[in-house]
């Protein structure tokens, strides 16, 4: 782990102006390495999600820079930024944001379809991904017919299907019971993480801290401490 997957420098983000200005992230600098499962933890309002959004090319910082795989993310045009998110980053949202009107396989295939892969090829690839997360038999069902843990795995399959180098997990276990949450994170740790991939996870859930390689603690928009996780090899 020599070259950082993500290099964030002096990231600052505030919302509002004048008296209503709120600084969400203040002068944050850190690196995340390939092969690393990095947890961002801290209380609500500490700036974790804002930081995650700036790193993943979703929210433009007021100052600072994000370099991913050697590219200055915020120097990209809007179209390039969309392509960056599509090809380099995989998202697992807190509420999954699956499409209830599409089948599970079609949900997983979305990033491929956005990459203009022909429909049938994309579906085949999505079914392969569902097999990896143990949901091959659920491919034709609508997400509404799946349990919370299964929906989480569908969201992971969707994030993985285009083989992104950076995976972003936003509160991945927030809607899951303890056992399911641990099972999911164990799966992520053993099956998803590899030497060419970096996973950033925002979480409150201390029950899953054992899976982290490194834990960064945030408070009031700043990183107040970094410690190796129990999953650190």
């Amino acid at each position, binding site marked *: 782990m020599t070259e950082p997957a993500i290099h964030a420098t002096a990231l600052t983000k505030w919302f509002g102006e004048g008296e209503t200005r709120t600084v969400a992230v203040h002068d944050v600098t850190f690196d995340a390495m390939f092969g690393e499962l990095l947890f961002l933890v801290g209380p609500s309002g500490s700036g974790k999600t804002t930081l995650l*959004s700036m790193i993943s090319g979703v929210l433009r910082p007021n100052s600072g820079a994000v370099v991913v795989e050697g590219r200055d993310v915020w120097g990209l045009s809007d179209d390039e930024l969309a392509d960056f*998110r599509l090809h380099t980053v995989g*998202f697992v949202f807190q509420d999954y944001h699956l499409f209830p009107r599409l089948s599970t396989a079609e949900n997983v295939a979305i990033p491929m379809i956005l990459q203009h892969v022909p429909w049938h090829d994309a579906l085949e690839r999505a079914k392969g991904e569902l097999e990896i997360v143990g949901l091959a038999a659920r491919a034709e069902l609508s997400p509404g017919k799946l349990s919370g843990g299964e929906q989480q795995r569908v969201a992971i399959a969707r994030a993985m299907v285009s*083989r992104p180098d950076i995976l972003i997990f936003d509160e991945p276990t927030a809607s899951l019971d303890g056992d399911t949450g641990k099972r999911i994170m164990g799966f992520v740790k053993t099956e998803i993480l590899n030497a060419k991939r970096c996973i950033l996870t925002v979480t409150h859930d201390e029950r899953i801290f054992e899976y982290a390689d490194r834990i960064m603690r945030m408070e009031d928009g700043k990183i107040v401490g970094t410690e190796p996780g129990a999953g650190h090899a």
Partner: protein
Amino acid sequence: MALPVRRVHDHDADRMRGLLKIAFKLLVNDRGKFFALLIGITFAVFLMVMMTSVFAGILRKSSSTVTNTGAKMWVMDRSVNNVLSSIPMPDYVLDGVRSIPGVKYAVPLYSGAGLVRLANGEYQPATIVGLDDTSLLGRPNMIAGNVEDVYADDSVIAVVDSEYPKLHAPQVGTTFEINDRRAVVVGLAEVPESGLFGLPTLYTTYNRATEYVPSGRYTISYVLVEPDSPAAIPSIEAAVYALGYVARTDEQFRELIADYYKFHTGLGTNILLMTAISFLVGLSISGQTFYAFVLENLERFGALKAIGAKGRELVYMILFMVGVTSLAGYGLGIGLCTLMITLAKWRIAEYASVVTYGNLALAFGMVLVIAAVSSYIGIRRVLRIEPFDIFRS
């Protein structure tokens, strides 16, 4: 990292096909809203086309005398604004028209209303059409009897149309009275278009018609003119104008009659209002339903944006959704309208309604406006959503 999944297909159709398929599935799999959208547009189109078709049917029937007579030019008083309000002209007008260079021939036509007393004593108003005694120009298509029998004493030819039963369906040989004068049906005929006001029609000779119907000093309702060639029409029009009358081609006469019903009877205004109301109903139902659909899927559109969809791709998706719904609604609306008119005509043979290309184009234009407004509302919302909102949710 050379991964096949990062392959980008250059072909534009391939690029969009998958996205549009997602859009299609999002749309049709939400059955409740999809059907609400379809119903909104279908009924808007149905009402708009129905209204305008009824109006087109009325206009067509209002010109039935012009259509049925088949003359190329009509000479009339300058004050005439529709075929029913003919103003009798003196005989010298006929002679004057006949003397105009370029006129191949000209004949008089009488058109008026007579009161028919049926065998059982009932009275029934009827349109009496008097054809030129010599040529019978404008004669109807005979389906029973011989047209020349109309020269016999008291002879009339009855037109078999939807109003025909009002004369108790007379056959050849049936007698009745017209304005207290004996009349004998010597033939049955059909015409391309029946009249607008529900009166049965009887044909006879010009001279006998003027005897049946009391009239003033002048009796010629119209002079029917056959020009030598289309090139002669402008000079005939000018010469007739110099006589103090007006000559119109059959097409011009139809337009004059249509303008009368559109602008001088209130009919056009009412139809226009009903069409506008139909449009507004369709617009409000479709616009509101599509807005609700977009709101419900806003987070998903935001998720697509976060995953990497470009703004214009989301715009294409919305345009496609609205386009599919609008075209399907348009087709269903036209189909429903055609079905209703067919059923109505099956029960009422002379039902005044006709779907014209103009009606279809008008309804299509209205549907495009509905689609444009609905898309605009949806696109504004979708383009405004920030991917960051998805994280915050």
